[in-house]
């Protein structure tokens, strides 16, 4: 994906929200967009997703399937969580049951019959996440995805990000909570007053770190991740037992 000289403002008299952004994202990239409030992170993400059109410049080679998790899920709709996801499955040209694996994985089954307007912020955020993943996205855009999620659910985001990038997709994620440590190998784009700075190399691990692989029981995985983080360790990912170690892990070890 090529971002070529993107300029954007919300109206003719409005100030520029983005000024001449130039960047490149390759398949398999995880890109964390950083910046203070009002810096233009959401604007850049919406331009990347294609829900906003740049005032000047263009984005080339955007993947055909885009999943977008907005910062605030639009919960003011007269559907239940299940009804909404089934309807969005149909809109994507999928059978209604296509949403079921995500409902299960994201822990939405208990809230399936709850009206969207009655969901908690975190649960509504999970519905937003589920709709973005109904069709495996070539570009996944996550706008503050950790917002409102509990500790156990927050571990899902790195898992999903890794799955998308391992399949050759690009992930753009904004973050102001410092959760980026959970996205190993992520590149950083920093926005300040509408101007974009990109880093050309992936974030390196701490020089005095070792990689320790730990096997835990499936039902204890979430709690183990939380405990490891609470003890100050970086959790690089969670994978099925018996699968080969992910390329990114190998890369991290080689970098050492």
């Amino acid at each position, binding site marked *: 994906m090529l971002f070529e000289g993107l300029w954007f403002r919300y109206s003719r008299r409005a100030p520029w929200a983005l000024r001449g952004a130039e960047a490149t994202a390759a398949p398999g990239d995880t890109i964390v967009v950083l910046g203070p409030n009002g810096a233009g992170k959401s604007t850049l993400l*919406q331009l990347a*997703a*294609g*829900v*906003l*059109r740049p005032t000047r410049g263009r984005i080339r080679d955007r993947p055909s399937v*885009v*999943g*977008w998790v*907005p910062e*605030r*899920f*639009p919960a*003011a*709709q*007269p*559907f239940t969580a299940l009804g909404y996801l089934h*309807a*969005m499955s*149909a*809109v*994507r*040209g999928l059978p209604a049951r296509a949403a079921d694996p995500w409902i299960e994985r994201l822990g939405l089954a208990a809230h399936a019959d709850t009206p969207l307007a009655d969901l908690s912020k975190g649960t509504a955020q999970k519905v937003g996440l589920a*709709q973005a993943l109904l069709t495996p996205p070539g570009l996944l855009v996550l706008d503050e995805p950790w917002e409102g999620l509990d500790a156990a659910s927050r571990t899902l985001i790195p898992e999903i990000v890794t799955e998308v990038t391992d399949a050759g997709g690009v992930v753009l994620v904004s973050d102001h909570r410092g959760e980026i440590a959970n996205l190993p190998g992520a590149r950083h784009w920093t926005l300040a007053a509408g101007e974009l700075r990109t880093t050309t190399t992936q974030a390196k691990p701490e020089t005095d770190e070792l990689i320790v692989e730990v096997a835990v029981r499936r039902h204890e995985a979430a709690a183990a991740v939380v405990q490891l983080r609470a003890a100050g360790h970086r959790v690089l990912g969670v994978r099925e037992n018996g699968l080969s170690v992910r390329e990114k892990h190998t890369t991290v070890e080689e970098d050492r």
Partner: protein
Amino acid sequence: MIALAWMRVAGFVRSGRCLAPLVAVLVVLSILYGGGPSRAAAAYGYSAAALFAVLAWITKLVLDTEPDVQRRLARLAVGPAREAAAGLLAAGLLGAGVCALAMLAPWAFGGISGPAIGVGILLGVLAHLLALAGALALGALAGRAVTRRVMPGVAVLVSGGVLAVVLGLSDSIAPWLVPPVMATARALSEDAAPAAGDLLWLVIRTLLWCAAALGIYARLRRARA
């Protein structure tokens, strides 16, 4: 696109936003047919003209029901052209339901009498379809996706509804600026059925007006995405 249209119809009906225009439709039909029976073609012609503004209002309500962020999610799912078309299809389905109600209502009121009822019904279907087409285009131009804010949308809707009547009068200086709902009503109120050429001209005028209005709608939607 069909699934998105049905999702929007469901959202509109379940949200309760359909109640106010439904009451307006019933009021219009009650006024039209409360005064006694008339010929089918004339009754349906004025019914279509009277319902034009209500059909445009319904279109705007349907297009404005879902939150802006949900509209963007839908655009990502099906593409911008299909997303815009799905909104018009949803409004068209609901508008067609209103037109069907308007076609059936006079029989409950005893509002139809006289000769040539079959021809009158066919002309009535045509008049309602022409009104619906124009109303879809006007309602789309008044939608929040185009006007961005509430007041400009209301202004477009009210202005369009009033101008359709004022500029549709027989001595209008610019009848081509509005869809010919009044001209259609006048043509159907004559004692003799309108000539095929006159009907064809009304259809062409309606289609040209809708093409122009929907072209502006598509351009504004693209520019204001």
